[in-house]
């Protein structure tokens, strides 16, 4: 009964290695991903004056892993323990009717909640902005943060809403029909970001947003 549809990738998903694919182009390799995350962690520490009151909320699936990694880096670089949680936005999406039902991801409220905190939403790809809009709605149900910022690994453009990221790993100009795919070693074979021009049965974090 539930959708086995064009859903978000599950952790059981088998990754097609980018090198196997004829029409794909790798834009970030594993070491690039690591450097980019290092930079974002530093930027967060700098911009939030040492990470006080910061709560990272990763958007499942891959945004949650990125939030984990950022929290670890912030701990290492700034010796500060930021709040960490997960925010599934599926139930707040405005495209379920057209894109189909998908299994729900997890929502984990950070210890200490989000009231009065500086919440940084973490996702892998920023595309239309609809996921972030849904996340802002979902956030309302959890509490009232002091302010909300956004960190993404890749910004591929084509916004449909007035939303911008505060921390961007890489700006990636793309054509609309292209797909930006993020692999993370936690659930995929390796860390990488690549552009595919045709649909593959795999993670496509830039879509359907």
């Amino acid at each position: 009964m539930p959708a086995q549809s064009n859903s978000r990738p599950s952790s059981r998903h088998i990754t097609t290695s980018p090198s196997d694919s004829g029409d794909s182009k790798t834009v970030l390799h594993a070491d690039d991903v690591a450097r980019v995350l290092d930079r974002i962690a530093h930027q967060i520490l700098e911009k939030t004056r040492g990470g006080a009151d910061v709560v990272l909320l990763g958007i499942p699936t891959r945004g949650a892993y990125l939030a984990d990694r950022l929290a670890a880096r912030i701990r290492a670089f700034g010796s500060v323990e930021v709040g960490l949680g997960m925010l599934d936005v599926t139930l707040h999406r405005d495209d379920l009717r057209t894109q189909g039902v998908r299994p729900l991801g997890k929502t984990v409220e950070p210890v200490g909640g989000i009231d009065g905190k500086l919440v940084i939403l973490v996702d892998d790809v920023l595309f239309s902005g609809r996921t972030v809009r849904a996340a802002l709605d979902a956030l309302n149900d959890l509490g009232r943060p002091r302010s909300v910022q956004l960190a993404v690994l890749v910004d591929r453009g084509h916004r449909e809403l007035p939303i911008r990221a505060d921390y961007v790993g890489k700006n990636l100009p793309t054509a609309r029909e292209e797909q930006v795919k993020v692999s993370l070693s936690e659930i995929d074979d390796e860390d990488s970001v690549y552009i595919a021009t045709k649909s593959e049965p795999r993670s496509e974090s830039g879509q359907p947003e």
Partner: protein
Amino acid sequence: MSRNLLSAADLSAAEAQTILDSAEQMYAIQSRQVKKLPTLRGRTVVNLFFEDSTRTRSSFEIAGKWLSADVINISAKGSSVSKGESLRDTALTVAAMGVDALVVRHATSGAVQRITEWVDCSVVNAGDGTHEHPTQALLDAFSLRRRIGDLAGRHVVIVGDLTHSRVARSNVLLLHTLGADVTLVAPPTLMPAGVASWNCATSWDLDATLSGEVNGAVDAVMMLRVQRERMSGGYFPTEREYAISYGLNPRRLKLLPKDASILHPGPMNRGLEISSAAADGDRSIVLDQVKSGVAVRMSVLYHLLAGVDQPAPALEEVSP
């Protein structure tokens, strides 16, 4: 994706797990201060109840409302046959109002399936006669999973009036799908006809079953409500004899492993099929079943309704 949930047999193992996993998220939302989600905004869910059931109706109503669906309750009790209106006319009349889902309870087996032949919207079986009650089985599995983890390879015993129980039928189907072993226990008079063909073991002896002598160690026992009017049908002699033979009384509780769970779909006949010691003890998950009911029904409504745009109802089929 099928747009109806009529039988626990409609669900594959993967589909059932997905519904239970999503229910897990819904369950977490229930503890929040703000429980309202926008997911089914603009959708209309009608609880079409041909038979009274305050708990199931309220559970579906809360589930729908927390997902922002417009929920309307229609009590059609005594409409249909006695008033001369056919089930078809009742169903078409309600569906013609632009409904996205019908949640149907009916006293007659198969009535809900029959309705799907006439309407275009999603239909959820909220209990049909002595046939099935799939969302009850899902919530039982959900509660049990929360308590004892994955149900694969676990042993669940279901005790009581199995012949007339829609809960038992749905549970046998779903638990089998989820990989659990099921043993049905009842006197021969309350065993369903043809039960030998079901995917479960059977026994007339509750003591032996609870002691693990029939189908291995017991992980959970589900006590079904026994209707007192069954006595006049000759199904069993007296309440006293039933309670002694098949009730989960304090003596029998000792036969049950310490970590086994006790379920009851409610409402309970304390002192008949279940003692207070069993219903209120540490091993009981009866109250959690009720709480799980809302989460599971939210999950079911989400999976049935959130995805697909519904075609307009067939107005032309309804005569003025």
